[in-house]
């Protein structure tokens, strides 16, 4: 996709700069003339939404850090000081706390989109793995951020999660002591978590740049999974086409985000986190934030501590191996009748695990978590196997063909299946 540059410097100063640092050319090539498949649906707007959310989190976070005190006896009240006395502090904090949740909403849509349309397949393996790295960094950042208000759930969440490392043989205990900066979660833990919570978003930012770079080398996937063959027929320039669509989607996303910030600001949180941290009192149910629940359910499903940690870790790491797990030659599940159903079953399993993660680890919930954990990993095994024998439906010859066929209302069996699977050509 990265072909010849169409940037033409218009003024003398632009020509002068272009000969010395072609930064305007870089921007032009990657955000204006960059060819984007003409058949992308709205699931493709979440990359832009995620970039927007990352910037929003960094901006609100920097402002919050100006007023926050990372000290175990002062942290809780300093957050309340932000809520009460800092001008629009309540807005900054609610934007930041709900922003984390919305960030994960967007990233899960983005990941499932990649999964459905086979965006991890060659030549996009590095792009996909960078995405998994971003996801891991996001989880670490969100976890440490949730510790900062130093409420009951902050403290006990930190205790439970850091304790997981003690399951590792030989070095486990040492790692935990190192994470805590002592022999229990205390002020040194809060200090280092604050420091890392400020650092990691910038690391995410760096990996996002690599992610976008890799994207611009291999080009975007599209709902048909068929590569661009003719730039003039199959693609439209990023600006104005993708820009206006991304901005529209961002504003719609902002409406949902704002609904929570202004009307339901504590919906995603836990009431217990408005109780100051107390090492002497354990909350009746220690529950992580909703976006960790599926992984938390997998952790608790395994009766053995080390086994649970390994299962939870594998549940995330397995995603990085998807390009080699999926054996099918066809990218988009729109043309894969069995994989498509498997995909929706996987979505249901993830939601089910999320539900089970919020429930107490007892009785039928544990058994259900175990079944769903097997189903979770079963998806990847099944994806490997069915790719070997599944007979995909016929692919369109090109992106332009698929769009034009839809335009004509579908005039053959091949076209009917292509249009029935997903509203590919919409938007």
């Amino acid at each position: 996709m990265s072909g010849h540059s169409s940037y033409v410097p218009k003024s003398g100063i632009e020509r002068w700069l272009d000969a010395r640092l072609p930064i305007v050319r870089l921007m032009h090539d990657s955000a204006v003339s960059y060819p984007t498949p003409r058949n992308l649906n709205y699931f493709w707007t979440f990359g832009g939404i995620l970039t927007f959310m990352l910037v929003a989190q960094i901006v609100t976070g920097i402002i919050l850090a100006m007023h926050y005190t990372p000290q175990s006896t002062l942290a809780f009240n300093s957050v309340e000081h932000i809520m009460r006395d800092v001008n629009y502090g309540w807005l900054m904090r609610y934007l930041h706390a709900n922003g984390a949740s919305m960030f994960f909403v967007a990233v899960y849509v983005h990941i499932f989109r990649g999964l459905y349309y086979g965006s991890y397949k060659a030549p996009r393996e590095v792009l996909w793995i960078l995405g998994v790295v971003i996801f891991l960094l996001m989880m670490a950042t969100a976890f440490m951020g949730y510790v900062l208000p130093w409420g009951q759930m902050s403290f006990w969440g930190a205790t439970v999660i850091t304790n997981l490392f003690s399951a590792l043989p030989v070095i486990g205990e040492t790692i935990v002591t190192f994470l805590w900066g002592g022999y229990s979660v205390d002020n040194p833990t809060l200090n280092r978590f604050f420091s890392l919570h400020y650092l990691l978003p910038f690391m995410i930012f760096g990996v996002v740049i690599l992610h976008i770079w890799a994207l611009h080398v291999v080009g975007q996937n599209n709902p048909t999974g068929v590569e661009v063959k003719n730039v003039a027929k199959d693609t439209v320039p990023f600006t104005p086409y993708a820009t206006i669509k991304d901005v529209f989607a961002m504003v719609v996303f902002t409406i949902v985000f704002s609904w929570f910030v202004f009307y339901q600001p504590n919906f995603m949180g836990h009431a217990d986190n408005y109780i100051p941290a107390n090492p002497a009192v354990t909350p009746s149910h220690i529950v992580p934030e909703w976006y960790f629940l599926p992984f938390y359910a997998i952790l608790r499903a395994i009766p053995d501590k080390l086994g649970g940690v390994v299962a939870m870790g594998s549940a995330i790491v397995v995603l990085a191996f998807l390009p080699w797990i999926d054996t099918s030659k066809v990218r988009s599940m729109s043309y894969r009748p069995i994989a498509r159903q498997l995909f929706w079953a996987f979505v249901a399993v993830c939601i089910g695990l999320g539900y089970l993660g919020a429930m107490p680890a007892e009785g039928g919930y544990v058994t259900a978590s175990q079944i769903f954990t097997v189903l979770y990993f079963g998806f990847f095994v099944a994806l490997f196997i069915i790719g070997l024998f599944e007979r995909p439906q016929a692919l369109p010859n090109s992106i332009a063909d698929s769009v034009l066929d839809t335009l004509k209302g579908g005039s053959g069996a091949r076209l009917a299946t292509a249009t029935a699977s997903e509203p590919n050509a919409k938007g």
Partner: protein
Amino acid sequence: MTTTSFRLALAGLAAGLTLSLTVPSALAAEGRVEPPAQSWSFYGAFGKFDRAQLQRGYKVYKEVCSNCHSATLVRFRNLAQPGGPEFSRSQVTALAATFQVKDGPNEQGEMFDRPGRAADAFPSPFPNEQAARAANGGAYPLDFSVLAKARTYERGFPRFIFDIFTQYQEQGPDYIHALLTGYKDAPQGFPPLLPGQNYNEYMPGHLIAMPKPISDGQVEYPKGADGKSPVPETVDQYAKDIATFMVWMAEPHLEERKRIGLFWISLMVILAGLLYYTKKKVWARMPDGSPLH
């Protein structure tokens, strides 16, 4: 998505639903009774506090609750802030002065008491947690500052999804109201109460250290033109008023938040509409003028 995969997704949902049906029984086993929902003036997108109610709530807090409960994050000046009880500044100065506040050290190096000022935090009834426990049979009367946000009850599936749309988030005040009106004799068969234990229908586990804190007629409300209080002086009304006051203490910018939210979201909806049509126009044709889709 095809019909088959849609059916699969539905089956997944149904499985989740059946699973969730087991939740209420689990709660009942823990001794939890769901607090009945009350009608609150601050509920919903257009919600606002009732000034008179907040002022009554402050009176209940001052005369009853503050004998044991602190609210260290609230300052007297907050009482005059827009969106709160909105006492006048002179009222706030006068009512702060009715408290004695420890200050110092002075130039002689000694601590001294002085009348409270608007900038002072609500003084605590006890100097420290140990003193509070000693005076209350070992139990610690909780700080009220954010308590209304720290109390909730499980909504369960599917109600927590509906709550997103109905904006129901008043679990805290509903629970506080239920707790204050929930003092009863223990039912037959309930294990005998030990000294310092009281039975409350809505306390998880039913055992609460706080004795029934308030009775009908205990707090005198301001009289209307007819010489009578416009609201009944009952436990039910006191409970509603103090719960409202506690919500305000926990969320003093609630009104401003909802007001800005309405304006901002309306703006975004209009912007989204304009962008939608701009997008449609842009996406009508390819750069070469041929139809795009």
